[in-house]
């Protein structure tokens, strides 16, 4: 029961964004697509979401071929780099959007939508902000709203594009720990794109290191740090904060263990 990406390639004009990329993402994991800018990681994320079509290759969600499935039918949660919150809607309406646009037959009733949204706002710790508008929130708060909005549709996979990219350093650190804890709580398969090595190491179960449209290495944070397969990976990870990996390992060890046994 995985998300399988097989032999995906994508060109934009003459620019090769992805060149024969294959990844297998186990259910319930949180993985990071890590690489310098222009390496194709965002394109890969958008292809998984269905916002781009690959030129070659296939995407399978839990055995079902999703390559040509419409975005709206994929049931993915996408968190945009600049949040893309609807600025004319308050927080409640933003989070409720995905439920309210469902066809009448499968749309939850008002009460169910209300309960769902309230559950999500307390999950992202924004209980007192439901009536505020995005412009009245800080960057970190907006990021959490974007996350809650994406989770409202109960996505099979959560996709995050540079989720902390637009935040300042301090908020970024807090939020990534929080995201990790959140994931341990809800176990939704998550893929996030980042160019920040520390971020990838601290948050993810495994890391996909990309460069120039190709995958350089896939492995756990420890594995990619301890045994880089080539000079690029070694160089790219040369100045990471090593204790981060060790810390996380200790802190999350028990949780992850439970997780694995569950599968």
């Amino acid at each position, binding site marked *: 029961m995985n998300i399988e990406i097989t032999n995906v390639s994508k060109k934009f004009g003459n620019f090769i964004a992805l060149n024969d990329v294959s990844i297998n993402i186990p259910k319930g994991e949180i993985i990071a697509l890590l690489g310098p800018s222009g390496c194709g990681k965002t394109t890969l994320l958008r292809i998984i979401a269905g916002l781009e079509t690959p030129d070659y290759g296939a995407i399978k969600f839990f055995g079902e071929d999703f390559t040509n499935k419409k975005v709206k039918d*994929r049931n993915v949660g996408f968190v945009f780099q600049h949040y893309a919150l609807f600025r004319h809607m308050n927080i409640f309406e933003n989070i409720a959007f995905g439920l309210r646009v469902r066809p009448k037959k499968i749309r939850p009733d008002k009460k169910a939508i209300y309960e769902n949204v309230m559950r999500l706002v307390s999950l992202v710790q924004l209980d007192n902000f439901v009536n505020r508008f995005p*412009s009245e929130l800080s960057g970190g708060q907006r990021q959490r709203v974007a996350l809650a909005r994406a989770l409202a549709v109960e996505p099979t996979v959560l996709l995050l594009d540079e989720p902390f990219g637009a935040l300042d350093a301090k908020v970024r650190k807090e939020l990534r720990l929080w995201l990790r804890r959140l994931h341990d709580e809800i176990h939704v398969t998550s893929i996030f794109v980042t160019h920040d090595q520390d971020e990838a190491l601290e948050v993810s179960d495994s890391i996909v290191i990309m460069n120039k449209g190709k995958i350089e290495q896939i492995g756990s944070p420890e594995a990619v740090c301890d045994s880089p397969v080539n000079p690029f990976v070694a160089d790219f990870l040369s100045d990471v904060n090593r204790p981060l990996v060790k810390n996380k390992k200790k802190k999350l060890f028990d949780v992850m263990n439970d997780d694995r046994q569950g599968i």
Partner: protein
Amino acid sequence: MTKIRTIHEPLWVKILLFFVSGIFLSVFIVLPLVTIFREALKSGISLYLQTFTDPGVAAAIRLSLLTVLICVPINTFFGVFIAWLITKYEFPGKKILTTVIDLPFSISPVIAGLLFIFMFGSFGWFGTWLMDHDIRIVFAVPGIVLATLFVSFPFVARELTPLMRELGKDDEEAALTLGASGFQIFWKVTLPNIKWGLLYGIILTNARALGEFGAVSVVSGFIRGVTTTMPLYIDILYGEYMFRSAFALASLMTFLALVTIIAKAVLEYYIAAQRKSMEVEIQS
């Protein structure tokens, strides 16, 4: 908006610039405005109001309203679609498309009218067929509507395109991943974001549709009471030396123009505020 400037022109230059602009704007803006209302009201308010009871004037006002009521919604509808097409998708030939949209602005209104004469006139492309079926387009109301559609077409698309480009596609893509359909995306996400810009475009379309003279006069044939819009009737009255009536009707149109520029200024304020909030959002 005004930045803090540390470099200023010498006082005498500043005075000179203000003086020159003042004179220029007085002659070209203030004097014509004042003249319209003065000429219209010269013989008193009752004679002024009497103008509007003239059946010719009333018919002209009705035809102008009809034209606007047809042209503005049609051009708004297609303008929105074209702006959507240009800003949401990449496709070959997009540059040519944007140029075609600008054509009605760069073509003389008289030529615009001429185009429809050559298309629908008795000797034009569809001339014989139309005559056989007893359909009148040129020298009739449909011709006026067509010519007005042509000249007032670009405004909505042109106002929306830069705005929608700045807004980007993120909101629409977010809505898409949340399961919204195309129409839901447009009504619930895009439209609320572009409403001020859209209104701005509509107001400009309306002003142009109402005031068009050259294009309409070519296709009208000046059939009094049938194909005379307000500007055409002003021309007729003026040509018959009925200056008071001409200026009375002109004053009505001027009043509408003043409402337009006020609405335009107010909307520009809202659009600028929206832009600013967008910038803040991205920075924070």
